[in-house]
């Protein structure tokens, strides 16, 4: 007997809603877990996933993907790609694996919540595959760096990072807990799959795969491509969920979820991808600046997705676009200056040639960020490395958990965005971060930033070494300049113009 084509049986096979006899509908699908916002179940049944796949098809495709990625890895294991790669590229790998691998496990739990509590059968069906996708992503992104752990123990942080109180790990956990670990099925569909994955990771992974190929790291390129094709499928869970919410009078609620999620995703990508593209990627391999990338993918592409769905642009859209010019430069300076607090070695990325590129891509960079780098470079040229090491903590944003920073030098615009709530003073990086807090203060109020913990006496001894121990950063793991300060040599012949130190 011939098998039916998928389209001949798919709709009936995934019609898995039923009328419960032994418990009430509310007990089976409590609103707090479904996030259906009172939209009745029959309205959710119009949910139509744009990408349809059967289980046998899924298994066959995934097997091929895994076989492809693992065979590229096996074939290249004896090549010296890793040893010959620029240290800046190795730093991108370390930052990526530590920040992403266990986040994928978290995303698996989120997808599982949609499998169980999604109100639409199609959502549950797609999320079943999404759950298996995320499990695969976690495992493959732990297995690949494991090969490098004997060469460099910073790669151990692929697994270790999320189990520590390292500040960037806290920032990632806080964001992912908010976007998808502590959310209902519908919220996850909107915040994780639509805002985070459609808006950011799907495109980020496309760019990262191309960069890896450009850098000659075909193992990483095939890994990332393999993940990206899953992302582009399960990221489509959110779109139809948004259509159901909007067509049933829940546009304002949907818009708020989207606005919160895009803002939170932007912070994480800004600190992870921005410095990777504009500083850690060797100059000869850069095809686009981070700003150009954001303008093409987020403004050019994602903006259209929002409008097509009938949503508005987030109220802060212009403010976020303005940040494309400076926020990641400020994050880069913080990453480099507080480099002992990282599990990777940040590249400074400020050779004379790099600075010329930065000035071309970001006119005014030399008069702002360049002036601060002048002082740093002058200290290194003149044998004062101790002045390039941190002696205190930066103030951390109570939303992003990332230091509050902006433009130094001539364009100085650094500002605290404070909020007093129930007698406690909170600090934010921007109006956008503060707005998120104000949408649900009880959700966020009790979290303590690293600085809050320091002031509460939870970090002992109360100094930088105590903070490093609190973050589980052992010697041999703490970050240092990726290139061992070799970039400073170019300035010995032609030092940057920094006035002499008054302190001397």
């Amino acid at each position: 007997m011939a098998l039916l084509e998928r389209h001949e049986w798919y709709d009936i096979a995934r019609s898995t809603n039923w009328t419960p006899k032994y418990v009430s509908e509310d007990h089976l699908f409590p609103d707090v877990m479904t996030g259906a916002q009172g939209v009745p179940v029959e309205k959710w049944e119009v949910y139509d996933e744009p990408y349809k796949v059967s289980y046998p098809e899924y298994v066959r495709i995934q097997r091929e993907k895994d076989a492809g990625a693992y065979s590229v890895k096996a074939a290249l294991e004896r090549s010296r790609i890793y040893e010959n790669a620029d240290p800046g590229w190795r730093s991108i790998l370390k930052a990526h694996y530590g920040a992403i691998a266990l986040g994928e496990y978290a995303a698996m739990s989120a997808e599982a919540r949609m499998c169980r509590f999604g109100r639409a059968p199609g959502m549950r069906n797609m999320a079943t595959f999404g759950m298996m996708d995320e499990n695969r992503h976690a495992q493959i992104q732990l297995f690949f760096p494991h090969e490098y752990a004997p060469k460099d123990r910073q790669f151990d942080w692929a697994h270790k990072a999320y189990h520590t109180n390292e500040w960037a790990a806290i920032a990632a956990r806080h964001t992912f807990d908010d976007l998808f670990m502590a959310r209902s099925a519908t919220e996850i569909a909107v915040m994780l799959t639509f805002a985070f994955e459609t808006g950011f990771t799907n495109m980020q992974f496309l760019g990262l795969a191309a960069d890896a190929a450009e850098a000659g790291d075909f193992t990483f390129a095939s890994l990332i491509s393999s993940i990206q094709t899953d992302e582009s499928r399960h990221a489509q869970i959110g779109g139809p969920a948004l259509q159901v919410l909007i067509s049933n009078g829940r546009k304002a609620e949907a818009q708020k979820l989207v606005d919160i999620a895009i803002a939170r995703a932007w912070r994480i990508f800004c600190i992870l991808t921005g410095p990777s593209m504009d500083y850690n990627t060797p100059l000869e391999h850069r095809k686009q600046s981070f700003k150009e990338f954001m303008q093409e993918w987020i403004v050019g592409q994602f903006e259209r997705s929002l409008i097509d769905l009938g949503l508005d642009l987030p109220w802060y859209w212009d403010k976020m676009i303005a940040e494309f010019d400076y926020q990641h430069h400020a994050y880069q300076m913080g990453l480099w200056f507080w480099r002992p607090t990282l599990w990777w070695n940040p590249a400074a990325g400020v050779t004379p040639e790099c600075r010329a590129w930065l000035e071309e891509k970001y006119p005014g960079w030399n008069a702002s960020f360049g002036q601060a780098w002048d002082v740093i470079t002058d200290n290194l040229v003149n044998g004062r490395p101790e002045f390039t090491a941190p002696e205190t903590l930066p103030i951390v944003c109570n939303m992003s958990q990332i230091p509050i920073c902006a433009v130094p030098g001539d364009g100085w615009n650094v500002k605290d965005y404070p909020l007093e709530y129930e007698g406690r003073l909170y600090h934010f990086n921007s109006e956008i971060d503060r707005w998120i807090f104000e949408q649900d203060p009880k959700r966020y109020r009790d979290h303590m930033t690293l600085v809050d913990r320091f002031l509460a006496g939870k970090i002992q001894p109360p100094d930088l070494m105590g903070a490093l121990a609190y973050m589980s950063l052992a010697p041999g793991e703490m970050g240092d300049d990726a290139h061992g300060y070799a970039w400073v040599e170019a300035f010995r012949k032609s030092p940057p113009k920094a006035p002499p130190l008054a302190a001397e």
Partner: protein
Amino acid sequence: MALFPIISNFERDFVLLLVPVDTENTMDEVAAAAAHHSVGRRVAPQPNKVIRVRRQGATEFFPRNKRLAETDIKPMEALEFIFADA
């Protein structure tokens, strides 16, 4: 005397910093404590200038010899440290 954490927003620096000072410190001493973490690290010194302290967004500086305890500055309030003519 009591330890008093403030937030330094130092002119021309890129980041807000935690700076522990003392309630008995004068504004000049508070400014020196903040300068320690910024000037000569990411901010070029301006030898002919003094560093004055003001609330974020304010135009008036606190008097240079005013003690922290004599002001209504709150712990962990963001203060601006500005190069000014002596």
